């Protein structure tokens, strides 16, 4: 047993007469205990995360309502989605607007807050971390925004604006088309300092302090130069991880839309790809169509992630 392990770790001792295939089988056999450790998790992960992506792609080419057998209909679902379904186009537009605003803004805010918090004394630092992180784990506490944006004069925002004479009569924020997306953006930003924020705070602790002193000797004069030339390049791994978390959640906005502006919202002003998907997947039970929506969403999410990753990798190069 020990002999074999040495042979695996030392390529020079490897028998030269093995073909690549034999070597592969040998390696697999050597690692069998490792596979045993991995199998239980891997099965669940594959069954509920990986297989569904491919199933979704497959079902998207069919008509399927769970009761009858799926029938193949080619690209019909996709054609209907992009050519006939006006509501989908609205939801696509809303999703992209929400993501393009909340994604980058929440990402930058998460970093800036983490960076500022990092310089505070220890206890203040823990308190501020909690204040910014708490909204994302507070369950349905975001319902408080229902009262803030409430359409009558009791709503905090209306009350405030009325008191200072900025409006004459209360505005029905949640049911007026033009205000729906701005409201969702504000609430999503409030909710969005999640795991990426924690990753940034933790990542800042990793930065080697002596680099700052060395930088000062090399002529760095203020905090902004220090941030750009030393901190950001050092934080690259966390920045990449945080980007993934932030992009994925900014494209998946649904729950706050349903709870705050209703489902369906007024003139679909708060409809997103995910709410459209829920409509067909869990209410109308047109699973083929829902799968086509899911596949489009999957491509947008992974595409956006890969694109942003490519850009972020250039930091400090």
């Amino acid at each position, binding site marked *: 047993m*020990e002999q074999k392990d040495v042979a695996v770790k030392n390529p020079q001792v490897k028998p030269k007469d093995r073909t690549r295939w034999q070597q592969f089988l040998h390696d697999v056999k050597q690692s069998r205990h490792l596979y045993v450790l991995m199998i239980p998790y891997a099965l669940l992960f594959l069954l509920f995360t990986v297989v569904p992506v491919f199933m979704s792609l497959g079902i998207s080419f069919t008509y399927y309502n769970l009761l009858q057998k799926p029938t193949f209909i080619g690209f019909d679902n996709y054609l209907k989605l992009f050519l006939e379904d006006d509501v989908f186009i609205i939801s696509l537009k809303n999703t992209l607007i929400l993501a393009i605003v909340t994604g980058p803004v929440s990402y930058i805010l998460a970093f800036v807050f983490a960076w500022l918090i990092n310089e505070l004394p220890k206890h203040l630092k823990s308190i501020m971390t909690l204040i910014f992180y708490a909204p994302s784990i507070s*369950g349905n506490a975001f319902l408080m925004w229902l009262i803030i944006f409430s359409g009558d004069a009791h709503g905090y925002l209306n009350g405030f604006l009325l008191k200072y004479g900025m409006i004459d009569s209360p505005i029905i924020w949640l049911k007026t088309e033009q205000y729906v997306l701005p409201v969702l953006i504000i609430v999503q930003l409030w909710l969005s300092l999640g795991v990426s924020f924690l990753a940034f705070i933790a990542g800042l602790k990793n930065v080697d302090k002596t680099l700052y002193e060395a930088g000062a000797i090399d002529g760095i004069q203020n905090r902004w130069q220090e941030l750009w030339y030393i901190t950001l390049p050092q934080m690259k791994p966390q920045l990449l991880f945080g980007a993934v978390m932030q992009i994925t959640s900014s494209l998946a906005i649904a729950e706050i839309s349903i709870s705050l502006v209703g489902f369906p919202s007024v003139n679909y002003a708060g409809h997103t790809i995910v709410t459209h998907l829920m409509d067909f997947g869990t209410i109308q039970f047109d699973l083929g169509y829902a799968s086509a929506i899911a596949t489009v969403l999957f491509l947008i999410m992974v595409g956006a992630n890969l694109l942003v990753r490519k850009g972020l990798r250039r930091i400090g190069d």
Partner: protein
Amino acid sequence: MTRTKKLKKSTKQNIFTKKRKLNRSLVGDLVLFLMLLGFGFFSAFPLIMTVSNAFKPLDELFLFPPKLLPRNLTTENFRSLSELMSQSWIPFSRYFFNTIFNTVVGTIGHVILASMCAYPLAKHKFPGRKLFFTIVVYSLMFAPQVTSTPNYIIMARIGLIDTPWAIILPAIGSSLGLYLMKQFMEQVPDDLIESATIDGASEYRIFGQIVMPLVKPAWITLIILLFQRLWANTGGTFIYSEELKPVSYALSQIAQGSIERAGTIAAVSFVMMIVPVTMFILSQSQILETFQTSGMK
């Protein structure tokens, strides 16, 4: 000369003394601190209002300007909440039991299985390792909603619909925990594992007795993350029997009332948020330690 003086000075830090930290100006510190305070208020205001509304009597709820603290503290809202709870035709203890069952089984399962899977990925080279981890990283790039429809079909096929396992099993197989655990385990020194191998310990023993005790901050993080997820899960379309629904579902039903129920809604939100927030407060330092290794290449 002046540089070295500056460096010596930078060891003491206090925003109001003249000894400034390296590259920090007093004006900048003040401006940024005020900005942090402003955004901190924006972040905390809805939560503070939730907590204070939960303890406000009805006549104070709709006062303008809203009071951050209740004038007459009352537990009226919690009493009306428990009254609503006792009116439901499923005893409320049943909802609590469901949540506890889902959370405990799901969290323990996730921590154990994800750690078992993370260990080989972090510490060994074997065929398929790179491919598997790449898939895990890709899986972080899309939200679970993408897979909800096929998940429903799969669960219907294997008979998981309307059982607690429809919530528990996908949570156990969620990938963020595996990712964080694997990144954290990479720090475990190779020497420890090698010397244990030479002493004849099996991989299972190395995992259980050497690696696991060293990655405690990571399990705490996985526990907290999965707890938050399961605590907030309402069962959605996967569970339709009332007696299998979790407490978050029952509370969200109560919270769906109109604005006149604002006090009760605040009481519900308070109950829902206080548990995960307390857990985070207690484990903040371990969680941050775990996230130090969360970086991507």
